[in-house]
């Protein structure tokens, strides 16, 4: 099954968003997750199973400026 993560096609196998984050070693507190242009609540990550063709955006914090 193919999804796009941050614009790049990736193969995943029926996982939840939380499992995808774990596989990438990303703590859910480090990112905002958007699925098909909609921001997911943090408590939705474990229950959201990705489907073929889904577009996932992992938005990392960027706190600098000075």
């Amino acid at each position, binding site marked *: 099954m193919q999804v796009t993560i941050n*614009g790049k096609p990736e193969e995943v196998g029926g996982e939840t968003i939380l499992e995808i984050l774990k596989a990438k070693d990303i703590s859910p507190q480090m990112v905002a997750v*958007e699925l098909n242009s909609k*921001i997911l609540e943090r408590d939705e990550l474990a229950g959201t199973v990705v489907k073929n063709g889904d577009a996932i955006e992992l*938005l990392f914090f960027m*706190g*600098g*400026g000075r």
Partner: protein
Amino acid sequence: MAFIPDSEEQVTRYSRHILLPEVGGKGQKKIGQARVLIVGAGGLGSPAAFYLAAAGVGTIGLIDGDVVDLSNLQRQVIHQTADIGRPKVESARARILALNPNVAVETHYTRLTAENALDIIGRYDIVLDGVDNFPAKFLINDACFFAQKPLVHGGILRFDGRVFTILPGKSACYRCVFKQPPPPGLVASCQEAGVIGALAGIIGTIQATEVLKLILDRGRLLTDRLLDYDARLTRFREIKVSRNPKCPLCGDQPEITQLFEHEPEVCAVKTA
């Protein structure tokens, strides 16, 4: 105030703007009447202040409670070596006036806080975020929502940068995407992370361009989309976002009804 159409000096100074159909004499006058607040006279604030001053923005407000440090000069191009130890707002004011004496510069030599934010932000038309920490970024977002002021957000980290324009109540806000700051220590945002200096120029300059578009009411703003820039790959990416009904600030059932400051982050590695 900063643009007098019958002044030859000014018509010449702004001629490359006036030539643009999107600007013209009318637009240049609007720029001259605008009041823009730059929060943070640092990496993002430096290029933004230079270009907004050069553009003839009538009043530029600068708020920053820090003094110039040697380690700032790798990217904070509005300050010079001789300015080390001087308040950043003073150093930046001197450079702005040297570039364009028509600009009125208002300096606020203090940190933006929950107590002073609404008062200071309330005096300006548009706010540009050039701060370097999450509590301040969230405070600016919240204050601009309560004061109903357009905000041009910017962020940089290592080789990555982001710009995002917010029209409070009309387009997605920072909290629609990022509800709250990351837990302290999890995401680098302070001295230890590092940043490629020229990146600040790119992101701050895009922010300044957004401010000018807001003043001129021309073009398509960076609202409801994040513009992310990866300097390693020289690649821009746009991420569509939208107002979040569950946003704790501007959503259907807001939990945040007054200004507050998140706990400051503690840097994992302190530099001397």
